[in-house]
């Protein structure tokens, strides 16, 4: 699949530190509570199997699913408008729908509808529409609380496929990565009022639009930061005020494809189209400075996140799922699988195949590729580019026409799944 089409499906997210009001087991924004596409769940047994709980239609869009308590949230098009939708996690029934604006029409390989995944916290849902409206709603009723018009208010440039950055919540701020003029690359709004708290885009960052790039919360050298990936550099920004605390130039400019993955001891894994780089950020006198530890041709060419577990990193490298030693970059194993998006739940990698629409459970172990369970879930005719979400024992997946909730229950390994359609 060509790069442009992948870009449509894997639009950037801004990721933040632990949200203040996330309940245990929530998935409050794209790629989860830490925005690392991973959660622990001690309630899940070491062996897992899949069972469909419910299945329902959903409108067109690439929006992922956020979950808080009894409710899940996503975005869709009804053919005329783009909407934020809330549903009951137990049954899939719609709780409310709020119109964001006229539908963003698919073009150049993309589809109608919203691209960003909503974020939920503190009783509020935040959903950016593809035309650039950020709307805050009451999570229980869907009633609109405030809105910001990013192109109008912040001179944000509309990316080619529309605004696709997903918001992240940290403390009482909603953060969003947008492109455009100076000082509007990364913005933070007060969650309660929508007032702009700060904005930043270091003027040295080349290439105008950062609309598809990603940032990750990390605590480095005692400072809570966001690590922002640009085309030709990676840098750390203070959550408190958006000031840049360190910058590392990358020799060859390239479109970033995945969130930087924070690892212990100030280490960060960067995955780009051409391969991976491990950086170590450390204190050098009064300042923070980054240095390369290793480079690897692995973990290239995929928009799916990488996940870390026990000193190893798991992720896609093109059509291969690979396990890499985080300390050295050496590959432990690789397996050709139907590529897609992966998240980690405890010891389990959950992979939604983009073409196959099938969900696989693979053991997060450096010993070998071990398939634990597999189930056909979404129609293979319809491409399934949106990543899965996980909350409270339930896996949520969707594509441009259907949404499915599955349970990851403990049961004998390799239990086959009966899909109730």
């Amino acid at each position, binding site marked *: 699949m*060509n790069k442009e089409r992948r870009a449509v499906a894997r639009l950037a997210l801004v990721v933040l530190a632990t949200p203040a009001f996330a309940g245990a087991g929530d998935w409050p924004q794209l790629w989860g509570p830490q925005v690392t596409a991973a959660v622990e769940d001690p309630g899940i047994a070491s062996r897992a199997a899949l069972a469909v709980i419910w299945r329902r239609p959903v409108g067109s869009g690439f929006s992922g699913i956020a979950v808080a308590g009894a409710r899940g949230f996503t975005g869709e098009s009804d053919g005329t408008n783009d909407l934020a939708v809330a549903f009951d996690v137990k049954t899939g029934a719609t709780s409310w729908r709020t119109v964001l604006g006229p539908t963003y029409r698919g073009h150049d*390989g993309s589809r109608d509808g919203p691209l960003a995944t909503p974020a939920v916290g503190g009783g509020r849902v935040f959903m950016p529409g593809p035309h650039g409206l950020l709307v805050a709603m009451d999570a229980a009723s869907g009633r609109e609380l405030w809105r910001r018009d990013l192109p109008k208010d912040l001179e944000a440039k509309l990316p080619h496929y529309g605004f696709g950055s997903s918001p992240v919540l940290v403390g009482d701020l909603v953060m969003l990565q947008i492109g455009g003029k100076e000082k509007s690359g990364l913005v933070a709004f007060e969650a309660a009022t929508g007032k702009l708290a700060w904005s930043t885009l270091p003027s040295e960052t080349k290439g105008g639009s950062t609309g598809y790039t990603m940032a990750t919360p990390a605590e480095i050298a005692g400072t809570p930061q966001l690590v922002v990936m640009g085309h030709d550099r990676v840098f750390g920004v203070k959550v408190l005020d958006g000031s840049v605390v360190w910058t590392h130039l990358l020799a060859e400019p390239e479109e970033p494809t995945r969130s930087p993955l924070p690892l212990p001891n100030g280490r960060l894994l960067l995955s780009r189209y051409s391969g991976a780089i491990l950086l170590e950020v450390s204190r050098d006198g009064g300042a923070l400075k980054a240095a390369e530890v290793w480079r690897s041709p692995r973990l290239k060419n995929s928009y799916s996140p990488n996940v870390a577990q026990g000193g190893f990193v798991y992720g896609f490298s093109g*059509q291969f799922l690979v396990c890499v030693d985080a300390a050295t970059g050496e590959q432990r194993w690789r397996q050709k699988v*139907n590529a897609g998006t992966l998240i980690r739940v405890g010891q389990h990698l959950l992979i939604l*195949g983009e*073409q196959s629409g099938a969900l696989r459970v693979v053991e997060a172990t450096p010993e070998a590729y071990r398939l634990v369970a597999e189930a056909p879930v979404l129609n*293979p*005719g*319809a491409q399934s580019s949106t990543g899965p979400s996980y909350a409270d024992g339930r896996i949520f997946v969707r594509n441009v026409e259907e949404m499915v909730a599955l349970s990851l229950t403990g049961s004998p390994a390799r239990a086959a799944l009966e899909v109730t359609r």
Partner: protein
Amino acid sequence: MRTALATLLFGVASSLSVAAEDAPWPQWLGPARTGAASDTAVIPRTGAIRLKVAWRRPLGVGTAGLSVASDRLVTLDSEADKVSAVALSRADGSVLWRTLLDTGLPDEERGPGSTPAVKGGLAFVLSPTCQLRGLDLATGKVVWHVDLKARFAAAPRQGCISSPLLEGDRVIVQSGAAEDHRVLAFDQRTGELSWSSKGAFRANYSSPGLRESASGRQVLIHHTDITTPTSPKGGVSALRAQDGQLLWQTTLDQSWSYATPIPFAADRVLLATWNDVAAIEVPAGDKGDLRTLWRVPAFTYYVNPPVYHDGHFYGTGGDLLRCVRATDGGTAWEEKTYPGSVALVDGHLAFLSVTAGLLRIVEATPVGYKERARVEALSPGARAETPPSVAGRRLFLRNDEEVVAVDLETS
């Protein structure tokens, strides 16, 4: 007779006379470069028909199509960074020869994208590193080789993925080089440069089409204008097949792709883009303005164009298979099938799903969607962008892991 002479000329001892003149599907989009098979009386109009997988073989990565000669298929594939040309038996898919072409390619995940062309006992192959070769069809040995990179500075970012065009005694390629070397014609037998285009527009990744006009054959190029990156444009231009001279061109706003332009009716060309499709009228004598007769978002294609049959076009737009009237671009019918590629076989569509591995035979009629047969030929999950090739009653399909032959059978 000609084949024997060709064999003698190249000094290649071959006990097998490979009559490539009988090639039923000699290049990308088939004999006439329109996605249509030439055989008639292949599918009975009434009665049940079915599709049956005849054989299945592993194949490496690539979207390069399968060209069909009298007894063999020829395509390109890759394994890691090694690109090969491979000939397979039509009868059972066994490998007849495999020739390593080059090591290294811009995108190992995509593999080679150029469909070989076969004619006169030769196979013309273009590798992603822009090496054009004429191979002996019987043995796979290299007969001639042109390094487009060294000679013409061809180095497009995605590699050379355009499919060569057969035209008379020439093999014509969109080279990925700049300026007056964008489209190149070589002598099929020797690889000598026949002409280099003058005034052609940038067109690194599309594959040329072919049009017969009153004044002679024309090479149709789908060009792209990316001078404004946020709103790239595309269009179609025609070069005289004889000497590569630019004859006419038109550029549309806000839409482009790498789909091959398709001639239809006496004076029209269909340009399919990523967002829509436009019917363009070429004035008599190629002089004067080109008119866009209609433009509708009925089809959305990136590389494969729709097919034309009996006054209508067939192909997919989004998740819908559509029949569109050539007169005004109006939709006659549409059916939810999810995206797929189409080849035309005896008044029917061979429709291959991109992701579900499903091959269907559907009547090419404006009356409505009438499916005659289907089979799950490729595994769901392995992306199949390459349209089917056709030879008589047998269809050939490939993806990144296998090549499959499927037969049309009457019960």
